[in-house]
């Protein structure tokens, strides 16, 4: 098949640009994985090796056995799971109320949710720290969970509301004619249909809680209560030279999020912009 020359040149140029972009953009991730799998002695070399050869898992076992890693991993897991579960339940109830009922305060609540989403997190740091301190909840995983839940809720409520709006009311009306109660309708009709939305929002909640550094850094005072990000940073400043262990630990830390993102990549954009752009 003969393609006219300018078009072919353009396509080649375009593909070259795409390849270049991919190479540059993936490089940090590639370098993270590459470093993590290198044997210890190969990391600090003036001439870097571009393939992890010989291949080694020493950095990973090194990281896992560092003091505090497993405890703080468990902390991260507990807090993150609690936030995800609570966020789904609380946001789903709220979204049901907001889409299926008209009541006083509905609109003020929605606008409040929109506005509160704009408040920068650093501004909340000081009052949340002082409030939890006077409530004797510093260093408490429960206090941290509550904080994340509040950070996550505006967005989750908003997105779930968007998904619920897309489900035709006729379905519920039919169930009502058949004599199903409202609670039953929520459970057997709305919940299964809105499952994609639940997945999208739970990923968001997961990422917020799992990735956060600032709040955990300020609210958690001793290492047994750190979450993984705080552990990682303290590890880098106290023993800054062990880049093998540090990068391997970072890889382990990033892994669940990357897997999650890949699983839901189709919904990622739709979820992020749902409700934000009106159609």
């Amino acid at each position, binding site marked *: 098949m003969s393609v006219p020359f300018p078009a072919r040149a353009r396509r080649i140029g*375009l*593909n070259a640009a*795409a390849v270049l*972009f*991919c190479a540059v*953009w993936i490089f*940090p*991730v590639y*370098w*993270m994985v590459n470093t993590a799998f290198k044997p210890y002695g190969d*990391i*600090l*070399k*003036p*001439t*870097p090796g571009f393939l992890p050869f010989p291949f080694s898992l020493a950095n990973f076992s090194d990281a896992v056995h560092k003091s505090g890693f497993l405890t703080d991993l468990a902390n991260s897991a507990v807090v993150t799971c609690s936030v995800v579960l609570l966020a789904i339940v609380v946001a789903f109830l*709220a979204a*049901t*109320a907001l889409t*299926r*009922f*008209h*009541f*006083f305060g*509905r*609109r*003020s609540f929605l606008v409040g949710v929109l*506005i*509160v989403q*704009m408040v*920068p997190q650093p*501004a*909340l740091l*000081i*009052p949340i*720290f*002082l*409030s939890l301190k006077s409530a004797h909840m510093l260093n408490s995983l429960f206090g941290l969970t509550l904080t994340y*839940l*509040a*950070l996550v*809720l505006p967005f989750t409520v908003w997105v779930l509301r968007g998904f619920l709006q897309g489900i035709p009311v006729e379905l519920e009306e039919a169930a009502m004619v058949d004599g*199903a109660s409202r609670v039953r*309708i929520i*459970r057997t009709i709305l919940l299964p249909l809105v499952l994609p939305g639940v997945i999208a929002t739970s990923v968001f909640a997961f990422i917020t809680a799992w*990735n956060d550094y*600032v709040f955990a850094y300020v609210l958690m005072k001793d290492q047994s209560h750190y979450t993984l*990000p705080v552990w*990682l*940073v303290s590890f*880098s400043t106290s023993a800054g030279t062990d*880049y093998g262990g540090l*990068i391997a630990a970072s890889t382990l*830390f*990033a892994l669940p999020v*990357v897997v999650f*993102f*890949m699983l839901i990549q189709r919904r990622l*954009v739709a979820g992020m912009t749902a409700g934000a*752009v009106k159609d």
Partner: protein
Amino acid sequence: MPLSEKPRQTSAAGPAEGRAAADAAATAEAPGVLSGVRPTGPVRTDADRPGPGRPRTGRNRPAVLRRLRRNALPLTLLAPAAAVLALVLGYPLVRVVVISFQDYGLRALFTGRISWAGWANYRAVLEDAQLVPVLLRTAGFCAALVAGTLLIGLAVAMMMGRLGRRMRTAVTFVLIAAWAVPNVASSLVWQWLFQPVYGVVNWLLTRTHLFGDLTQRDWSGSTLSAFLLVWLLVVWQSVPFVALTLHAGLSQIPRPYYEAAALDGAGPWTVFRVITLPFLRPILGLVTILSVIWDFNVFTQLWILTRGGPNQTTTTLPIWSFTKAFSSNSFGQGAAIAVVSVLLLLAATALYVRRLVRSGEDL
């Protein structure tokens, strides 16, 4: 779902908190409060509205009771979310303003005795020699980040639309991989990439023979290169969201418009200006405003990579507020800076906020 289980009816009656919330909400939403346009009268009662939202109320009950009963279920459903938001977002928002007017230092922290400071915190912040450089830095850095992210993001989005299916999948994969790496992990990887002596970037740059021997270069050692270091990191992380969102927006522009433009012999720039841009405007606006908010508040990456240094020359507003509060233990001044930041951000996004509140009209 077990069919035998009898559906519970109790929640329809509404527990105490639902009722309290009902009262609060009823007083909170005065008609017309949102827009000043809507005339008087209770906002949209649902008596005339079809759908499952319409509860069956007794015909001869007093009006208040009927209204409470009608609102009980939704307000009960809403109560947990409202409680958490009020407690952990609403209350701190009020409190940060209160603290900014208090003499909240170490003594207050330990004795619990807090005295009012009037405008002293704000005066101290306004008279601080740091203020002007910090403001300029924050604005400049934010602008550079937003511009870089949007330009690269738009270019990548437009590129994606013209690529073949396989190449586009590869680009999507790369974008998602970069997007997924958590802030802390990517900041630490950045430290490692740009490490003096052993960092691969220094090595690569030296190999190009363009800049001389850079192997010893310490990127966080001078102000400009420290900002460049963080700029690269934040742009690397933010482009994926922008590119994927804009790509989604671009792919919704109807083909015939482009075909018509091609028939009329329009050049690529004209096509972009006359067709692409107008269609993309709403989504571009959204992405811009989100970028402004996020980039204004960049904290973790700066904190890990530079700690605001060297000599506090990469200290932006969030870092300044943080160090005032948590390093100098002057929570009052830290809160004052936070309040000023929020006000500045609100001013910068005022139009958008106004649109949001307006959109409350037809929610």
